[in-house]
């Protein structure tokens, strides 16, 4: 019998018993911190609206519910396309992966551009009152996350067009998809609480 023991070089092997894979644990911790960040902003919203009982929106202020509703539809649809992209690469369908990612990118960009236009035309500014501050903080914080998600998706899309990812090796798409779904879930919460209720 030949000797084939692998000598270990370098730093000691990390203790691996996290009971969850490193990538998923990383994403879990990251999103937990994000939930806390959004939670801080929602706490401010809760104090202004529920504890202090201010009208939402105050008299003379108007929220573009319809445009934001269309934007919500676009973002929810983008979750379907990123899901389709992942399902495609699992089946070895590279065209599906690329199309799904491009569509997701385009819809994310549309969402962000619509939000920027909405800001320009909304008729009030963050420094006007507490309502305006919280409106811009919550939607702006979410917009920043959409921007980060789009940056991640852009890199994933470039990689997809360069031939990266295989049916059994597509963790990059999976993690980007999880983040994008998280952004989507947060928008549904923001849209429902800030615009509709």
């Amino acid at each position, binding site marked *: *019998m030949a000797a084939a023991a692998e000598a270990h070089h370098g730093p000691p092997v990390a203790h691996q*018993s996290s009971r*969850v894979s490193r990538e998923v644990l990383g994403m879990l911790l990251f999103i937990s911190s994000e939930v806390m960040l959004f939670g801080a902003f929602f706490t401010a919203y809760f104090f202004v609206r529920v504890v202090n009982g201010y009208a939402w929106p105050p008299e003379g202020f108007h929220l573009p519910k319809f445009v934001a509703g269309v934007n919500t539809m676009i973002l*929810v649809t983008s979750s379907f396309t990123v*899901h389709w992209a992942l399902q495609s690469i699992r089946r070895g369908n590279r065209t599906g992966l690329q199309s799904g990612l491009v569509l997701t990118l385009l819809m994310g960009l549309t969402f962000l551009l619509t939000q920027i236009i909405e800001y320009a035309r909304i008729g009030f500014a963050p420094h006007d009152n507490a309502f305006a501050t919280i409106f811009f903080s919550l939607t702006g914080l979410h917009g920043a996350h959409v921007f980060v998600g789009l940056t991640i998706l852009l890199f994933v899309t470039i990689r997809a067009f360069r031939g990266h990812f295989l049916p059994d090796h597509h963790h990059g798409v999976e993690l980007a*998809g*999880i983040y994008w*779904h998280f952004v989507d*879930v947060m928008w549904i919460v923001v849209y429902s609480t800030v615009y509709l209720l």
Partner: protein
Amino acid sequence: MRNPLRSEQEAFRWVLLTVAAFALIVIGGLINRWLGLAVFIAVIIVALWYMTRGREERPLPVRPAARPGENERRILVVANETVGGGALRNCIRKKSEGVQENVLVVSPSLASPMRHWASDEGPGRAEAQERLDASLALLRQAGISARGEVGDAEPLQAIEDALRTFGAEEIIISTHPEGKSKWLERGVVTEARERFALPITHVIVDVDEEREDLVEDD
């Protein structure tokens, strides 16, 4: 507990559930503020139930991280108190015949669940390390090239952790005989066969009997 971030599939399901839940909350809230609050509380209760009912959820099947070289046979051995058993050594020796063997012996930590949660696994790991060292020495004496590590106290988790870095082609699980083995009582071998897409050999080591044999040989 069900983890909504375990996979993209789960996260996508959460998007759909969130859409449905908030549609109900908004409809309730627009009809009457208190109805909206009631729906919100109901949704939270359902969400908590949904998340906790997933305790029996099967983990995703794990495949090894790396591929072995030509004529190389990578064997992952998982053994606890039976790690020094003769039956286990014989099994490893048989499987190593005619190939360039690469054996990784994982000995799960002997820490109790209480010590695990208190992050006080030191003594349990040290004890497991001692047994492992003794076993590795015996394997090397028998001409088997092997290395070892102390793994998670949960044997299935220890296997999963090891597979992530060691591209095993097969797994050997060594246990005490039926009636003496806690692992068999908990169905570790059966569960490992369902969870890991690799051939699994179950070796039974009767430590007491081997000890008696040794006494007789002496």
